[in-house]
């Protein structure tokens, strides 16, 4: 029988060792699945690394996929810190994209179009989180379920918009809006698809949230609420308010990511499944890896960006189905949370 005992003070070495171990396990298991599919794991990983890190175009792709993860991930890191498990970033991203698109399509184009789009996107993403955050903060309704359900609702809402009232006049009946005017498009880095203003926004947000967490009184409350709700209650801290605020912040960050995708890549609002490619879910792994430190997202987001871009490469070079990305994500997430437990506990073989 395996038995587990609490390990109150895991050593740093153990911590790092376990995380590296479980990540290696995830990659080994994924490799085994590749072999079962019929592609040698070494060939797959070789292709993945060579095509992403080994050439400028690949690096640009990694960067492009990193942008939304950076934004969503840093918001989620903060939310997870107060145990607000926002699983609804996908829906919040879609709402942000829709609000950004509304500004681009229905307000006159001007120099302030882009800032307005980002503002509207953040507001919409935050508001979409409001029911879940409020219910959790006030009456302790499980936010995982509510945010998860609101993902699907957001998807249908966007589908309704692009197939109904917002369907473009120049799109020949397809389900998307007309293209955004030039003033509502983000500039790109050289001839890559890296919409750099969003990237800058992501970096700034990650750093800003880190500062907020470590240098402000709200951040102090946030840390106490996250580490020991009981202590926070004794200290008379407004726990519901802290949870609500954090929830809204994480939704707003996801909303920003949504604006980045439509204003930087698509230049239109389109079918929900085409807008996001699952960034909201991948960002959960990004945040989980960052272990409560928003600034660490600057490392973990590119790691998952690398995997997303690498998955594309496996599809292009080796004709593997796009589902390889889900295999990676699922395995990594499972191994990570398992690893977290392994850090917290000592394993004993009992007879």
């Amino acid at each position, binding site marked *: 029988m395996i038995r587990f005992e609490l390990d109150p003070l895991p050593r740093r070495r153990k911590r790092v060792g376990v995380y590296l171990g479980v990540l290696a396990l995830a990659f080994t298991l994924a490799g085994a699945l590749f072999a079962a599919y019929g592609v040698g794991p070494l060939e797959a990983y070789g292709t993945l690394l060579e*095509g992403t890190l080994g*050439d400028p*175009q690949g690096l640009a*792709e990694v960067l*492009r996929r990193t942008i939304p993860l950076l934004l969503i991930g840093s918001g989620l890191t903060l939310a997870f810190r107060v145990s607000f498990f926002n699983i609804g970033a996908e829906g919040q991203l879609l709402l942000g994209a829709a609000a950004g698109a509304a500004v681009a399509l229905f307000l006159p184009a001007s120099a302030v179009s882009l800032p307005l789009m980002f503002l509207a996107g953040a507001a919409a993403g935050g508001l979409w989180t409001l029911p879940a955050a409020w219910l959790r903060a006030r009456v302790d309704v499980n936010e995982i379920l509510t945010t998860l359900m609101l993902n699907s609702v957001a998807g249908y809402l966007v*589908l309704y918009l692009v*197939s109904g009232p917002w*369907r473009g*006049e120049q799109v*020949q*009946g*397809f*389900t998307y809006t007309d*293209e955004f005017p030039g003033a509502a498009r983000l500039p790109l880095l050289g*001839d890559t*698809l890296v919409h750099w203003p969003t990237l800058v926004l992501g970096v700034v947000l990650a750093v800003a949230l880190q500062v907020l967490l470590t240098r402000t009184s709200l951040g102090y409350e946030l840390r106490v609420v996250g580490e020991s709700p009981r202590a926070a209650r004794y200290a008379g801290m407004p726990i519901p308010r802290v949870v609500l605020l954090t929830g809204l912040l994480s939704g707003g960050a996801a909303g920003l990511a949504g604006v980045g995708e439509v204003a930087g*890549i*698509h230049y239109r609002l*389109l*079918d929900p*499944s*085409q*807008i996001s*490619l699952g960034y909201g879910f991948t960002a959960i792994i990004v945040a989980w890896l960052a272990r409560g430190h928003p600034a660490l997202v600057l490392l973990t987001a590119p790691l998952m960006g690398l995997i997303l871009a690498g998955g*594309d*490469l496996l*599809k*292009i*070079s080796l*004709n593997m*189905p*796009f589902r390889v990305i889900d295999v990676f994500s699922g395995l990594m997430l499972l191994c990570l949370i398992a690893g977290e437990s392994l850090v917290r506990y000592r394993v004993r073989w009992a007879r």
Partner: protein
Amino acid sequence: MVRRQVLLLALLALGVAGSAQAEEKKLKACFIYVGPVGDIGWSFAHDEARKLTMKALPWLETQYVEAVPEGQALPVIDRLVKGGCKVVFTTSFGFMDQTLEAAKKYPDVVFAHTSGFKRAPNMATFMADFYQLYYLNGLMAGALTKTGKVGYVAAFPIPELKRHISAFALGVRAVNPKATVNVKWINAWVSPVKAREAAEALMAEGNDVLAFTEDTATVVQVAGRKKVPGFAHYSPMHRFAPDFVVSGQLVHWEKIYIDFLSKVRDGTYAPGKLKDVDYWWLLRESAVELGGQPGLPINPKYVDALKKAQMTVGGKQVSVYDRVMELLKDMSSPTPTFDPFTGPLQDRNGATRVPAGRVMSPQELNQMQWVAPGVVGPVADEPK
């Protein structure tokens, strides 16, 4: 051990040299598909054609990428061009703007886009269209319906579908002037669950023959299970319901691919010369074929019923079977005399769309927003 390694190295060197030599002569064409190649439907048909083209052109090298989301074609094209692709086929309407962008970015690469209407000096368009076949399918559906209601499961209200549904309805009404073609939209190319429920809803409303435009065999399977006649779309779907697939539409993209690539190779279609290259290939070019599987234009199980069914053509009674065969022969000939979209034609609201004696041009067909009389159901962007 050592010797074997040396041998291997030598072989490898030879192989590299050999392939380098071959590469000089080979032309690399790349295909971007919107759906998975394995499943029956549009992308499957393109990939079958790619394989046939490979067989036909020994100097050709190909690569494909499947299930590319419509908003993500550009990074894929970047990769492919980097990998040495000289010709890129983008096979979905949704790739149109990104293909155009890529054509500007890579002026030395030849691009060809399916089903769109934007071209550039190095970007052509191509389409193997089914509207003639839909008309013939419509004739048969009109003969087979007892309730006078034919169901149609449709993906998106785009010109391609409006054209096909209208041609189908014109066929249905040529046999049975009171019949209707009832359309349900599923707003998806690949969605078996939606297609199933839409087909079921159509049957609940009294439709006793089913046709569709969607990329799975679901509707044919539903027809088989409910024992009603149905029409296959795009791929050999006869095998999914052998007793209930009456006919259908099959495509031979390879006819276009072979012709196009040969002309790229001999310089006719060098980059810069493609501004006006638009393939609009039909029965005459053998780019499309009538039937639910190759070589079987009409399921023998339905031949008797179609021979018995009568329709009026130019004041004379003929059997539907004979009419289908006659038109098929005519439209497959080098100089067809019949076209389903010959005026006078009105839309379903009574407005005249094609005056008497005129035939719709490919461009009009490509941007068709109205639908023919007999089509029932919501139609987006319909002109008033």
